[in-house]
């Protein structure tokens, strides 16, 4: 401590303050809204005058039949999405990195980013067609190979996988961009040295490339972990139906059916609050773990 430290550091503080101000006003400001979770909220009465009911909303939630099933679905689908959703872009980025022809590389990069722009409303319709047991391409292909047809969207065993793979397909282009940027940032000098040492491409990948992007992998994985309670409402909503509630109903779709249609803000906010807490705790744990064991500060 001492004035010289402050003298060095004050520009850094000043750089932060504009962003901090905005965040304080527009992100922290609205947080008074969490009070709604404890109220029987009436839009017109507002937060100050709506009735306070304490933990009632939360109790209703915990006692809701099937809440366990729903939480389990959410977590398991999310985790699968996180894992597969990291592997795919990493692999793609690595493969793209091996491509020399710039035009091809750019073309592929652009094309794989495209599914990101399609909404699940559209994709849902397309997928229902694709996976149709009678006319869908996938099933026709299966039949051609000699397998039995599968009604994917109505099958509780398959449905989670449908969710995971279609979501990865839609989003991996986005992550690949980040990984590619990370890859280009790895110093060519390292590769040159490796070549001199006689290392083949595979060895180079293992010893240079992967470690080089490891921090980004950890970063994205951690941030996804914070998102693990979300599991993708958009997608599930457009693909599910009562037949697959058992394996596909997630927290958000349940909340949707329960709360939002009737202006049940209290309940929806309560759920949101819980989800945020879980997500935050997970991120905090990851941060601490990464710091303790790998001496790496994720952020």
């Amino acid at each position: 401590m001492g004035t010289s430290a402050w003298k060095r550091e004050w520009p850094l503080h000043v750089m932060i303050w504009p962003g901090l101000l905005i965040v304080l006003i527009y992100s922290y400001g609205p947080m008074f809204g969490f009070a709604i979770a404890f109220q029987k909220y009436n839009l017109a009465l507002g937060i100050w005058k709506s009735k306070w009911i304490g933990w009632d909303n939360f109790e209703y939630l915990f006692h809701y039949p099937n809440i366990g099933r729903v939480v389990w679905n959410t977590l398991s689908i999310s985790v699968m999405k996180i894992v597969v959703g990291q592997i795919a872009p990493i692999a793609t980025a690595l493969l793209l990195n091996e491509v020399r022809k710039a035009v091809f590389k750019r073309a592929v990069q652009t094309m794989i980013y495209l599914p990101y722009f399609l909404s699940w409303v559209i994709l849902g319709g397309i997928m229902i067609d694709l996976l149709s047991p009678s006319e869908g391409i996938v099933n026709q292909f299966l039949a051609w190979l000699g397998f039995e047809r599968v009604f994917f969207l109505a099958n509780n065993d398959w449905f989670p996988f449908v969710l995971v793979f279609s979501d990865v397909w839609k989003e991996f282009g986005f992550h690949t961009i980040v990984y590619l940027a990370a890859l280009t940032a790895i110093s060519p000098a390292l590769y040159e040295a490796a070549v001199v040492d006689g290392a083949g491409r595979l060895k180079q990948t293992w010893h240079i490339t992967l470690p080089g992007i490891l921090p980004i992998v950890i970063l994205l994985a951690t941030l996804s972990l914070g998102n693990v309670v979300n599991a993708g409402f958009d997608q599930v909503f457009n693909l599910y139906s009562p037949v697959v509630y058992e394996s596909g109903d997630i927290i958000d779709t349940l909340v949707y059916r329960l709360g939002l249609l009737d202006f049940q803000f209290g309940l929806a906010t309560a759920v949101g609050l819980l989800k945020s807490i879980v997500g935050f705790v997970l991120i905090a744990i990851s941060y601490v773990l990464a710091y303790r064991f790998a001496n790496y500060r994720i952020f």
Partner: protein
Amino acid sequence: MVEHPSALRRLFIGGNYLFLAALAILCVFPLIHVLAVSFSSSSAATAGQVGLWPVDFTTRSYSFVANEPAFMRSLFVSLQRVALGVGINMLLAVMLAYPLAKEARDFRWRTFYVWIFVFTMLFNGGLIPTYLVVQKTGLAGSLLALVIPSAVNVFNVILMLNFFRGIPKELLDASYIDGAGHWKTLWSIVVPVSKPVLATVALFAIVYHWNEWFYGLIYMKHTDDYPLQSYLQTVIVQKNFSELAAQDVSLLGKVSDRTVKAAQIFLGSLPILCVYPFLQGYFMSGIVMGSVKE
């Protein structure tokens, strides 16, 4: 690199090209389908007959969308929004990432600040409280409402700070020794060598501001002020009979949902198709980046 690729290597390269090409096509074909629908007649679209090629080719849905003067107006609003939004987003991201990338000993409060920002990634007050705040600060109804509250994107900041960390200390030290302060160092040293991450963040920001439509509809008071995607939302016939009664019986027979929606999607992704190849150039220019371990 290796001078004479082995047979195995050549096989790999060939296979790689094939695989990536197949992957790319897999990703592209739904969009092609959507494109085909947008150029098809409404009855063909409703009957689900459109595959990868338009059926009953017609540019009706596009002209329906583009002929409205409102379309051009909203396009202009979107361009403004993107320019303003991306500019602010990137400026703040850079200004936040630089200090936060410092080590604790160089900047004692960094961890504290970082957690303040990270917290907001998970905790959000909700639409109504946010609206109230935006309204009380006088932004409701102006373009600023779409640009200021979302000005700090913590994900982008974290991405950037990780990259900044990788910049060799020698570069920065040289700058300090030359008498440059933080501000000057940031702009004359750090930013120029960070093109990949800047390009990445710029891309994400552009995509967000171009496609975001919901807040446009909530905060703007008049249809004149809508950005493009918000405007396009109003153009689509909502075949929702559940909560509304009485649709005009003949209106129902008009423009098909799907062809116009398809045109909308296409218009939504168009700028990215144009911008992304341009930005990719920046990904190619690497920076000197050492190990990130502390």
